[in-house]
Each structure stands twice: as structure tokens, then as C-alpha cells.
């Protein structure tokens, strides 16, 4: 019996989603470990090395610990919103991965599974190639504000409320620069589609980092602010706000905030690699054998993403935090004009 191609497409999509979620969650777990080890390295400490060989089982131990912690809900909290706020922040972060291309086309050879004959198919290593890919990403980042704002509000605590409001203001402000910094790329590519943006960078010197260096700088700074990472983590500024918007959270709900933070970090790193560093295109890819080229490209993409994740951690443990008014001033008075200037320069460059 031959499998219906429509069902096959659905099955392939489900498998891709499954693999992607698995990879993202594993990376999140090991990113927490990496953060602790790298911070230890930077501060000349050893870091967690007790659980398993070299401490590699530490994320698992952390997970088990989180699960057995008491789930505490403050008496005056709005219970429903308090419960769903972590999900509202995690879901948009995960949805971003749907449009990120991990690799080019792969061909699945025909084979027989439990008497079902599955035909040869080609598929791209991307869940969905939306026509409005980049806008979709921006839409998801703008929806992510709700989780933080509601998490801060629903706990009914002045520190969490201040953290929530700070973060919403910060995320709305930096969204503008984030969106505008990409406009230069869109002008050069002439498309919002992720696959076309990647295809526009197939040669090493075509990478947008060489053509849009200013945009990259703005994008990185805005992405750091969007993810509420140091030096812009005023949302959870310990000295002023105890723990910020998640002060009242505990147990798995707290860990969901952490997972969301790291997942959006991975998404932002993957976007930096996709938009500015050629996506899955690698130098010398035509010299790699035909069987290995996809593997080489995917490995290259993961390596680039991993590098930006390292930069995130590196910056966090190297730079001090900005003051809130400085943060707003940078966002509105420096980044936004620079992003507009970048659009103008790109326009002039394209015309000349």
C-alpha cells in the first residue's frame, strides 16, 4: 500500500516539529549548565562539576529539584492569570522556531515501514516557509510581552508589578529598533521569506554582516534588550526589585520562565545566524562531498547559533547593568535614529 502524499507531508511536519522541540529543550537544559560553567570560567571559579562526568548531568538534577519544590501561589494573587502567565511567555518563544531554516533541501528515499510503502520525497529543513516569515517573528516577539506583564501584575506585589511594567516598556521600545534594523536586509533581499533571505547569502562575502554591519549591531543590542538579558535585565534587577516579575513564582512555573528566557535566547541567536551570518550557508560548501553537504550546513548553522549563545553568556558576565533612564535613552535616542539612518544609507546604496 502506498501512503497518501498528504498524510506523508503531515507526518514529516510532525516529525520535524518533534525533533526541533527536542533539540530546543535539550539545548535549553544544557544552556543553563553552560551559563554556570562559563560564568565560573570568567570569574575564575570551577562551577558545577559534581553531578555526572564533568557535571554533565547537572541540568537533569536541576529539573528534578524544580519538580519537587513547593508550588506556592500568593494568597492575594489572581490565580488564573498567575497560572497561565509562564505559558504565555514560553509559547511565543517556541513558535518563533517554526520559520527558522536549519538547512536546505533533503531527499528522503523511498522505504517500506510496516507494509506501508513510503515514496521518495524532498523536504526542506524548516517547519514552514511563510511568505511573511520575518514579520511572523516580530509578531511573536511582540506577543511575548503579555507573559511578563501579566506575570508581574497577577502576583499582586509591587516589586513584580514594577518589574513587569519595566519589561513591557523596554520590550515595546526595543521592538522598534529590532524591526527597523532588519529593514535594510529586506530591502536588499526584496522578500520577507526566510528561505529567500538565506539564499541571498549563499556566497561567503554575500553574508549580510558584511553588507549591513550597522544593522547587525543594532539587531544584537535590541535582541539583548528583548530577551531581558544583561546589560539590559532591569526586569529582574536584584538590587532594586528583588527578583523582578517572577519574584513570587516557584517550582515548575518559575522554571518555565527560565526555559522561556533561554528558548528566546536560542531563537534570537538562530535569527542572528540566519539574518546576518548566511543561515545554513557555509564557506567552501561546494568542496564538501554531496552526501555530507547537508550535514556540513546544518552543523555550520548550529555552530553559528552556539557561538551567539556563548556571546550572550559572555556579555552577561562581563558588562554591568544599565540604569533604566539610560536604557530608554539608548533605545529611543541612539538605536532608533541609527536604524533609520541604516535604512536611508541602504536605500542610497541600492540606487547608486
Amino acid at each position, binding site marked *: 500500500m502506498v501512503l497518501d502524499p498528504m498524510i506523508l507531508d503531515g507526518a514529516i511536519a510532525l516529525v520535524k516539529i518533534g525533533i526541533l522541540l527536542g533539540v530546543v529543550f535539550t539545548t535549553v537544559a544544557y544552556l543553563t549548565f553552560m551559563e554556570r560553567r562559563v560564568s565560573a570560567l570568567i570569574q575564575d571559579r570551577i562551577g558545577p562539576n559534581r553531578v555526572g562526568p564533568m557535571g554533565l548531568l547537572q541540568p537533569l538534577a536541576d529539573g528534578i529539584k524544580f519538580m519537587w519544590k513547593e508550588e506556592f501561589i500568593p494568597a492575594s494573587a489572581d490565580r488564573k492569570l498567575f497560572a497561565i502567565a509562564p505559558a504565555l511567555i514560553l509559547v511565543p518563544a517556541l513558535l518563533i522556531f517554526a520559520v527558522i531554516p536549519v538547512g536546505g533541501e533533503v531527499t528522503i528515499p523511498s522505504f517500506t515501514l510496516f507494509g506501508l510503502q513510503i515514496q521518495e520525497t524532498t523536504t526542506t529543513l524548516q517547519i514552514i516557509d511563510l511568505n511573511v516569515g520575518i*514579520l511572523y517573528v*516580530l509578531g511573536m516577539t511582540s506577543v511575548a510581552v*503579555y507573559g511578563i*506583564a*501579566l506575570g508581574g501584575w497577577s502576583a499582586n506585589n509591587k516589586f513584580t508589578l514594577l518589574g513587569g*511594567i519595566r519589561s*513591557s516598556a523596554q520590550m515595546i521600545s526595543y*521592538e522598534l529598533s529590532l524591526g527597523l534594523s532588519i529593514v535594510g536586509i529586506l530591502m536588499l533581499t526584496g522578500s520577507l521569506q526566510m528561505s529567500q533571505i538565506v539564499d541571498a547569502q549563499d556566497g561567503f562575502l554575500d553574508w549580510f554582516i558584511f553588507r549591513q554591519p550597522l544593522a547587525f549591531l543594532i539587531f544584537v543590542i535590541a535582541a539583548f534588550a528583548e530577551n531581558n538579558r544583561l546589560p539590559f535585565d532591569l526586569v529582574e534587577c536584584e538590587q532594586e526589585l528583588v527578583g523582578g516579575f517572577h519574584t513570587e513564582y516557584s517550582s515548575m512555573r518559575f522554571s518555565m520562565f527560565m526555559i522561556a528566557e533561554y528558548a528566546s535566547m536560542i531563537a534570537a541567536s538562530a535569527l542572528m545566524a540566519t539574518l546576518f551570518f548566511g543561515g545554513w550557508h557555509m564557506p567552501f560548501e561546494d568542496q564538501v562531498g554531496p552526501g555530507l553537504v547537508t550535514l556540513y550546513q546544518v552543523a555550520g548553522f548550529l555552530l553559528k547559533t552556539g557561538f551567539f549563545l556563548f556571546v550572550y553568556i559572555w556579555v552577561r558576565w562581563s558588562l554591568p547593568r544599565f540604569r533604566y533612564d539610560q536604557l530608554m535613552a539608548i533605545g529611543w535616542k541612539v538605536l532608533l535614529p541609527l536604524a533609520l539612518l541604516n535604512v536611508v544609507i541602504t536605500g542610497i546604496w541600492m540606487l547608486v
Partner: protein
Amino acid sequence: MELYFFLFFAIVAVASSVAMILQRNPIYCVLLLIMVMISIAGLYLMLDAEFVAIIQIVVYAGAIMVLFLFVIMLLNLSREEGGTFRIQKPLAVVLAALLFLPLAAMVMSYAGGGTTTPVDGGEAGFGEVEQIGTLLFTKYLLPVEIAAVLLLIAIVGAVVLTRKGTVAVDG
């Protein structure tokens, strides 16, 4: 398949909007309105209007509703007590009925026919960014420019209003 998706988004949209009106807690109202916006975006997506769907999410769900939420959170509006809208309630019923009549008449007039087809439905490139962009910068250039100037005025106005309390410092 398409029918089930339509039913899902339609039911979510209608149910959330009804719940939004019946809800007394303003924060819940905002959240339910966001649900309505997102399900309408889903309906746009089913009409092959990807761009409009995403813009619906970015602009309404992502920007305007955040401001709503902000205002409500900062003013700390508590639950609306019954009786505030004494005159409005019967008035709303009458107005809703008036609005419903032409709408129902329109739907009824299309019901039996089956001659009406979606405008330019399956045409390649329909609803895509390129097409919308081309239209906006050729056929509808003047309205776009006028809207842009209006928005600029609004931005400048907002800046002027918020600076009201501060004394102008020279240099």
C-alpha cells in the same frame, strides 16, 4: 479540514467576544479581546491573507492591546460594579438590533444564490506582501501619504502633551 479550522476560529472569536462583554474584570476583558484579535488573524490566514493576518497580530494583539493592558494595570481599575451603565444597556440592545438587521439581510440575500465567489480568490500571489506593497505605492499612494502625515502629527502631539509639566530649558 478547512471547515473545522474555520469553525474553531469562529467559535473562539464569538465566544471570546461574548465573554469579554460579560466579564467584569477589565484585565480579563483585555485578554479576551486579544483572543478575539488572534482568532480573527486565524480567519485571515485561512483566506490566504498571510500579511494581513500577521499585521493583525503585530499591530492589534502586539501593540495596541499592550497599551490597553498598561493603562488598566497602572490605573489599577478594579471590578466594574453593576449599575454604572444604566442608560447604555437598553440603548445598546436597540442599537445592536438595528445593526444586526442589515447584516442579516445581506447574509440572507447571498444565502440562496451561490453565484458569489471570493474576489480574486485562487489567483497566484493574492494577499502577498509584494502585491500589497505595489498597490500601496501606486494606486493608493495619496491615502498612504495622508495617513503617514496624520500619524506624524499624532506622534508630535503625544510628545508635546507629555512634555507639558517640564519647564523648557535652553541649550
